[in-house]
């Protein structure tokens, strides 16, 4: 609440222009919007100094504008135009000093079209101070902690006041400079500011842009365009990315365990390994299946001489004497020696997996139509062949497929987050010593 006896307006003691008095009791300086005179608010507004040849910064916000920030009402009482020049390049931004009778003072910064709010940070910070010289001497990227957030060094900047207008809680002078060591956290940033006279620690928040512009009554057409991303801008990654990555990894592990368990659940023997009389081919073998749940497995094992192969043709008929399927499998055994040493290709075992359609006696018709030595097809050279059958087997394939999906999700989210973080830190001036 404004004191009923408080002054609401003054006349500039230099040019006579009428100036609104909007700030609270901590205002010490009032810079005339018309002549640039800095007036002493604590001494009858006598002229302290004069800002000259100032260029008004490009901001649609004006002194006296009111709006909502972080759930509180604020009024703009002062505007500072700041500039940093380094290596022939210059960067400019505008600080709007805000006042709330109940919440004091804050800065609303407009930089590259982004709105950021900054407040003096009075909570405990570790370390309590960080200078640009300390950063220069550091071997690893400096960090700080406060309010449960960890901050890492981002940049050091030296800003110069290029424009001033309105009320301030200290005495700004044209060409005054301040050095700011900025550290970036996951959600906010922390700054150690040294203006040569005093040191402050400040914390900044990125604002919901459209809502703030709306609350200050700035039309969409008057809002400055955004020139690239801001490091404080929330990364465009799904919410709870860390949780989703961890949860995906856990579910991938669960699927891996399921796969191993199902791989071990190979069912029970229906037909133990049974030799096939190769002289009577083609031949038939019968076996009984007692359940339709799970997989049935036909396993063939051939005794092959070195560098030989044989093609097995199998036709299975169900208890109703209806053919279920026909399948072919190659058995082979090759070995040799090359520049890398001895090698073996052992394919003397092969399987056929199928779902039984009903319980009963199945008939397997077997033949070996082809085979040979090496790559020739000059007749089967199989020493012996045995067949075994199991039923009620599980399959590791479904959990394996889901495991791959969870791994892809986890890796994809991780890379997405890393890429977003890299973009946030792209403007940092820290260089690791290699």
């Amino acid at each position, binding site marked *: 609440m404004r004191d009923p006896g408080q002054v609401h307006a003054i006349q500039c003691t230099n040019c006579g222009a009428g100036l609104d008095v909007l700030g609270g009791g901590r205002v010490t300086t009032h810079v005339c919007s018309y002549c640039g005179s800095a007036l002493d608010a604590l001494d009858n507004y006598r002229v302290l100094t004069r800002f000259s040849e100032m260029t008004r910064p490009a901001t649609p916000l004006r002194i006296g504008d009111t709006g909502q920030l972080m759930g509180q009402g604020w009024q703009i009482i002062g505007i500072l135009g700041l500039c940093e020049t380094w290596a022939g390049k210059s960067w400019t931004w505008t600080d709007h000093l805000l006042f709330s009778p109940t919440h004091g003072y804050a800065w609303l910064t407009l930089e590259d079209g982004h709105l950021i709010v900054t407040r003096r940070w009075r909570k405990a910070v570790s370390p309590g101070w960080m200078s640009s010289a300390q950063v220069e001497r550091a071997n690893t990227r400096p960090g700080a902690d406060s309010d449960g957030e960890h901050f890492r060094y981002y940049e050091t900047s030296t800003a110069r006041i290029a424009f001033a207008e309105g009320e301030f809680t200290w005495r700004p002078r044209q060409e005054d400079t301040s050095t700011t060591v900025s550290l970036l956290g996951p959600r906010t940033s922390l700054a150690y500011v040294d203006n040569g006279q005093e040191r402050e620690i400040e914390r900044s928040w990125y604002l919901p842009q459209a809502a703030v512009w709306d609350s200050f009554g700035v039309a969409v057409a008057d809002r400055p365009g955004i020139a690239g991303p801001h490091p404080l801008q929330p990364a465009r990654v799904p919410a709870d990315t860390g949780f989703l990555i961890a949860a995906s990894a856990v579910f991938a592990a669960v*699927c891996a365990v399921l796969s191993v368990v199902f791989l071990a659940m190979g069912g029970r023997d229906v037909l133990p390994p049974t030799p096939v009389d190769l002289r009577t081919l083609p031949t038939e073998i019968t076996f009984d299946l007692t359940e339709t749940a799970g997989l049935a497995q036909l396993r063939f094992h051939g005794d092959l001489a070195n560098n030989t192969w044989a093609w097995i043709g199998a036709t299975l008929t169900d208890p109703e004497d209806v053919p279920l399927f026909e399948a072919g499998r190659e058995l082979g055994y090759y070995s040799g020696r090359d520049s890398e040493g001895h090698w073996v290709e052992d394919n003397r075992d092969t399987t056929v997996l199928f779902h039984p359609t009903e319980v009963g006696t199945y008939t397997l018709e077997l033949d070996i139509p082809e085979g040979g030595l090496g790559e020739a097809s000059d007749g089967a050279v199989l020493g012996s062949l045995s067949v075994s059958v199991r039923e009620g087997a599980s399959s590791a394939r479904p959990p394996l497929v889901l495991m791959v999906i969870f791994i892809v999700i986890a890796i994809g989210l991780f890379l997405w987050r890393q890429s977003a973080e890299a973009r946030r830190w792209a403007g940092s001036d820290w260089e690791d010593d290699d």
Partner: protein
Amino acid sequence: MTPIRIVFLVAALGATAGVGYLGFMGIGGASADLDRSIRVGSAGNALASSKVK
């Protein structure tokens, strides 16, 4: 617990339970190269065919 976490956990648990059932029953594990085109078909409409002169 945020909505996105709840949705993800429910979906992931459902999917894991689903593949658990499929894997246990052996569904999806059959050999992919089985030739089932040899099923014996019907003999055709023999009665109708017999009327063809």
